[in-house]
């Protein structure tokens, strides 16, 4: 067991390094003039000079990358010793010259909003997806089943911005049951925080629960007809015991996989959701950085998102190996 975990973590870290190297190369090597790209559209000649110095453009790529990686672990000081010295504490994911702040502090600032969306939405879609799937499987073939499947299909075919707008139109503008979506600190104003998060949560849950509903339903149906269930029933276990204990546990494995992946992707920044609902999270930070062509921030957010995805993959694989021992032996 432990060796599998160790192997998996090593492989994950390796992938992370490769991804970071690729991201780094693409944003710093591919462009004709990376300093100009980091300078962005708000460029002035003096800003350019500062950036060239700080980025140490003349160094070979490997050195630049090495410095960057070192910065992640121990922090980094740009232009050390000069009057334009920029301090970037560990973990240093780069320095945004345009806003004059380390990327890490920008990210720390935006993380709570993204976490709020991710955690709330994921709990909701699990709830909706699982219960919908269970209901469907138990009442297979009935109107409830068809209705649930149609609901899931609609969710899978709709777009966030469209659904978001419609829900906003109904609940905020017409019925006025909810305030405009946004982000306030849950520690300061918990009720307001929840009220403003309802629409993003519900929209995401509606759209993403489809696959969980489908997986749960098909998983349960498949397992319910398996031999060992028939044996359990023959032995006299009640339907309920059978359903919940045996069936659900077996059906849960693919769901865990997908959940981990979805959550990982969402944590990286639900770009469209944050845009549509105007939540100041990582996704919004990224879109703003793209609009301003603030390369260091773009690199930082992409890297962070990749970290979330890779970590989620790793955790999912490890949990999967607990649930399905065959995996460990591969």
């Amino acid at each position, binding site marked *: 067991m432990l060796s599998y975990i160790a192997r998996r973590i090593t492989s994950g870290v390796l992938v992370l390094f490769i991804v970071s190297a690729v991201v780094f190369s693409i944003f710093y090597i591919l462009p004709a003039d990376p300093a100009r790209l980091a300078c*962005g*559209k*708000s*460029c*002035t*000649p*003096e800003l350019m000079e500062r950036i060239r110095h700080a980025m140490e453009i003349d160094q070979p790529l490997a050195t630049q990358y090495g410095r960057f990686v070192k910065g992640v672990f121990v922090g980094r000081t740009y232009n050390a010793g000069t009057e334009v010295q920029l301090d970037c504490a560990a973990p240093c994911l780069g320095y945004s010259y345009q*806003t*004059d*702040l380390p990327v890490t502090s920008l990210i720390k*600032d*935006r993380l709570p909003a993204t976490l709020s969306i991710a955690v709330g939405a994921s709990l909701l879609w699990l709830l909706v997806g699982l219960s919908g799937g269970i209901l469907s499987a138990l009442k297979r073939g009935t109107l409830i089943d068809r209705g649930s499947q149609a609901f899931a299909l609609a969710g899978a075919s709709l777009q966030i911005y469209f659904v978001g707008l419609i829900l906003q139109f109904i609940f*905020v*503008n017409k019925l*006025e049951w909810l*305030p*405009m979506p*946004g982000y306030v600190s849950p520690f300061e104003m918990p009720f*307001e925080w929840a*009220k*403003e998060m309802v629409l993003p949560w519900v929209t995401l849950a509606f759209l993403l629960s489809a696959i969980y509903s489908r997986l749960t339903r098909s998983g349960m149906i498949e397992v319910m007809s398996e031999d060992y269930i028939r044996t359990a029933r023959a032995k006299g276990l009640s339907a309920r015991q059978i359903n919940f204990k045996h069936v659900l546990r077996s059906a849960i494995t693919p769901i865990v996989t997908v959940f981990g992946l979805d959550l990982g992707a969402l944590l990286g920044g639900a770009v469209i959701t944050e845009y549509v609902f*105007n939540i*100041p999270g990582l996704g*919004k930070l990224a879109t*703003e950085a793209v*609009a*301003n*062509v603030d390369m260091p921030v773009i690199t930082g957010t992409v890297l962070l998102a990749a970290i979330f995805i890779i970590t989620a993959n790793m955790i999912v694989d490890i949990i999967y190996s607990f649930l399905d021992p065959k995996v460990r032996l591969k």
Partner: protein
Amino acid sequence: MMKLGRKTGSVIAAFALCAGVVVAVPSASAATEFAGPAPAVKGATKGGTLNIFDQSDFEHLDPARNYVGGALDFYRFFTRALLNYRTYEGKTELLPDLAADMGTASENATVWTFKLRPNVKWEDGSTITCADIKYGTMRSYADDVLKGGTTYAKDFLDNPGNYKGPYIQPSADLPSITCSPKGDSITYKLSQPVPYFQSIVAYGSFAPIKKSKDTGANYDNKPFSSGPYKIQTYNRGKDLTLIRNAQWDPKTDPTRWNYPDKIVLKFGADQAVIENGLISDSGLYKTAMSLDTELVAGLSKVVGVAKYKNRFLQYQSPYSRHYLINMDTVTDVNVRKAIQCAIDYNTVILAAGGSNVGSPSNSMIPSSLSNAYRKFDICGRDVTKKPEAQTAAAKDFLSKATVKKTDLTVAFRDKGTEKARASAVGAALEAAGFKVTLKEYPVASYYTAIAVRGADEPDVIQGSWGYDWAAATGIVLALLDGRTMTKTDAKSNYSRQNDSAIQKLFEATDSMTDVKKSDKALGDIEQKTIQDLATVVPVYMQIANSIFGSKVGGVQADGGYGTTSPAAAYIKK
């Protein structure tokens, strides 16, 4: 040589109908006449938090770098200058702020002396001294570190020693500014007569900066306060929170109010989000307003509807929306005339939001400046009577061109209706036979980017301009005078023009001390530029449409900066 122009940032200055900022006449008993506090705003109550939702953050809050209408209005919450505009019950006056009087001119308006108010404090309790005011101006010379802002100090102050600013020359002095031995008055020696110097000292390069608190390029992030509020937190691009500054004494300031306890700004939302939020009046929007977002899509819901009457503000603004044609890249005057003729006033105004947002105008000068404004034809017709594109005439001019440039880039900002307007222009130009590429720029750097000479220059620039003060000098010189440019930076002369005949006319205005005369001369220059040089296509004068929350009172159109102003705002109980 004057530099003028305020780039548009947000809502523009409001000038009701008859414009005119009243410059209070200097009088002998200045001390008591100009004492604070400012007169109470009817119905105003102290307390509460004012929320402001803006699409973008301010470019600069550093007084030496601030040059955008909305920001200039807003930053007076924590920035005092020698003189300051106050708009109260529809009337706008220029009044003494840190000065105790309106200043006395001598030696043919080349020397100005201002008495200073005693015992005005910084946010840390220390006194604002004459040395601080002098340092603020000296610092504005540091172009190397402090990019942006007005260049009035450099333009007008006498500088025989070629002072370059305190970062390059830390121990040098700027002798043209002198403080009296007791520090109770300050004197400026100018390099030329400037009869309107009082309007100039309202600007940031004449605001005080405490030397020990000068953080150079980082001053933008946390300016040190001399006003009724100070900065609690400022996360660039995200939010800004102002709290009360206990050291501000209203008795020393007849130009400011401080009704709300706290002012919280949030940046980054979209035009639609802010519009819809303010209209919905729900949650935080009940106590909110916006400095840079006007009603566009929501206009139809609000105009004339009784429910919104109390929180809807509409006023004629002195901001002109126009197109500048780059003479360096579009060299043939016939091509430029073709562009002028091709533009369809109807579609541009519709794209902006229709007749409630603007009406066709042939000039960038507001009609309220009666000596400068004149009515003339563009492309051989009265644009108010025949706003449609004159496509046939355009094609005609294009055929007469010797340097046939038909590929055009149209530059515009990523904000509000700019894209729709640029698309309208693009479509109209294509109908006349041009091939158009639309080029979008982010808001925070538009004016810097399009002024860059030598690379990536756009051909047609969507621009807007509001005067720095109510005279043609505030518009024509900045936008059209070739002397403002450098080899690499067009500054505000976006059309890069430098025609010798027109430049001679500009030089003639330099010595005109009579505003009526200079207004008339500059109005002539604008007409000549538009009709002969064809580098400008004025389209409309903006009508501002603002909406704010039902619990906000005191929102008004500021006559000094032409913006929807929070200066007198209060939260209703």
